[in-house]
């Protein structure tokens, strides 16, 4: 590690990307520690893929700077390309060629020369358990084998930093397990992995640290445990009888948590994550009683995945007003 980048494999500051009137990235910041698996999590259209495409040199940002694997993204593009690997939904292998022919071709294009490209292809086929299928056309591969070949193709130069863009989307559980195992093997060799995913479980399984992105901005950043404590713990859920009492219920819930309650007026429901479940529940009940609110239901519940996203993104998928009071565990630029 050198001092200039403080041990960061990726340092992106204020990335902006616009497509006409649509702002895909709106001042996105990201720090990825060397040797870690970093999950980039967010709903569809949040800007995950745009961020990956910029950091892997496929598209140019309109504004912002980034250092990727120690090289400046804008000035030293070819050097970035030598140091990174990209696999996932947007970087594929040739389906007509065999696995071996694919790897040898990519080896040549990474400028290893033909004999070393051949040797490297054989090594990677072995490493990713593809030797038996090496001389079959990729068309005949299963989904999991294809993704593994995809990973192998990105590993030709044993890059220090791998971008995995939704590596298991569309795979069955077995294929998903195979890809996860391959990713873990990379990490054991010291590769830094930046992983985008829509699946909380995948980030949970693989990532040391997670950045949540929404509407082109970083809205949360932390270890899975930290994020879960914030979003995934028990929550108090109150449903009131009269719609006019929703505000009172909101106040009661707000009093027991550091986080802002989620309010759903149509269902006359207020939800808030809490830490001391029983104390919080008792306190909410006491306050509702004191305010004379008639209650349909009060209880403790585990949040659903939807609520996790809702909690972190601060709005339902179609809502147009971003929440201004979201928890920001680390120095997140606004």
């Amino acid at each position, binding site marked *: 590690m050198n001092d200039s980048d403080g041990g960061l494999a990726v340092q992106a500051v204020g990335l902006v990307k616009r497509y006409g009137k649509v702002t895909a990235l709106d001042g996105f910041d990201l720090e990825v520690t060397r040797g870690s698996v970093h999950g980039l999590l967010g709903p569809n259209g949040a800007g995950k893929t745009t961020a990956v495409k910029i950091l*892997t*040199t*496929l*598209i*140019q940002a309109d504004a912002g700077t980034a250092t990727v694997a120690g090289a400046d993204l804008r000035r030293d593009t*070819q*050097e970035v*390309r*030598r140091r*990174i690997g*990209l696999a996932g*939904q*947007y*970087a*594929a*292998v*040739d*389906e*007509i*060629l*065999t696995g071996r*022919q694919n790897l040898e*071709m*990519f080896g*040549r*294009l*990474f*400028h*290893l*020369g033909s004999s*070393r490209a051949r*040797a*490297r292809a054989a*090594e990677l086929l072995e490493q990713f358990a593809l030797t038996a299928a090496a001389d079959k*056309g990729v068309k005949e591969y299963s989904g999991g084998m294809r993704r593994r070949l995809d990973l192998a*193709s990105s590993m*030709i*130069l*044993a890059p220090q930093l791998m971008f995995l863009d939704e590596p298991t989307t569309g795979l069955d559980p077995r294929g998903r397990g195979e890809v996860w195992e391959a990713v873990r093997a990379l990490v054991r060799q010291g590769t830094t992995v930046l992983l985008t995913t829509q699946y909380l479980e995948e980030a949970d399984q693989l990532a040391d640290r997670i950045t949540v992105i929404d509407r082109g901005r970083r809205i949360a950043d932390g270890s899975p445990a930290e994020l879960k404590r914030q979003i995934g713990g028990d929550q108090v859920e109150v449903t009131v009888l009269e719609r006019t009492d929703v505000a009172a219920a909101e106040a009661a819930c707000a009093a027991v948590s550091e986080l802002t309650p989620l309010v759903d007026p149509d269902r006359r429901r207020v939800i808030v994550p809490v830490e001391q479940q029983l104390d919080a529940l008792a306190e909410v009940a006491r306050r509702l009683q004191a305010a004379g609110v008639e209650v349909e239901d009060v209880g403790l519940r585990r949040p659903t995945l939807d609520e996790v996203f809702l909690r972190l993104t601060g709005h339902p998928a179609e809502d147009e007003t971003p929440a201004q009071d979201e928890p920001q565990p680390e120095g997140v630029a606004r």
Partner: protein
Amino acid sequence: MTTDLRPQQRSSAYWAVVDSWTMVRRGLLYYVRQPTTILWQLGFPIVSVLLFVYVFGSAMNIGDGADYTSFAMPGMFAMTMAFGFMNTAYAVVLDKEKGVTDRFRSMPMAPSAVVSGRGFGDVLGAAVDLLVLAMIALVIGWRSDGTLLETLYAFFLLLWLRFALIWIGIWMGLGVKNTEAAGNLFAVAFPFGMISSVFTPPSMMPDWLGFIAMWNPVSSTATAIRELFGNPAPVGGSWIEQHAQLMALVWPLLITAIFLPMAVRRYQRLSR
């Protein structure tokens, strides 16, 4: 890990050539892995040969009692070249759709090689196509009465046309959304190939259509190679028909001059 993974250090000009060759090699491997590709590509020209020579052939009178097979065969060669841009467009859109293009673009290879490799690879593929077509033509009675040099020059003119159309193919391939949309390019290819002197002399068409056919670049190439092969080449008195040899060189040059920069520009715009 045993292999030394340090990339070779050479000039960018060296890599532009070597990477381009690697991409050409990829195209050649397709022929090895899927030899039937050639038949699919030649399916339409071959069926057209059978249709025009054997089904319509006896009813075809191109004047002066000239042999229709000898007239139609060079036309077929030219039409195959004309339709070739669809193969290019299809390959380009397939790579784009599958994400192969993005993999190449994320690699430290010479950026020009993706486009140039496609270009040279497709010309090589077209040469293979022509070889197969020429053999079929020989079997059904076509002959070149030109000298060896004239015959080779005629084939060069055909590949020259195909080379020019590569850039249209890349430009269109990068422009369409997916492979299904690429199939619709047939609506462009069909009139481009057919409204020409490929199957009938433009002088026998209605005036306005004949005019379009005469000025179709495919016609210039078809007429030029008929002359070189010593095959019947009935032409009218218009300037464009009288200067087929010249125009068979100029048209492709003009197309390249316009569409090569446009194709490169569209490729570069992928990073927008």
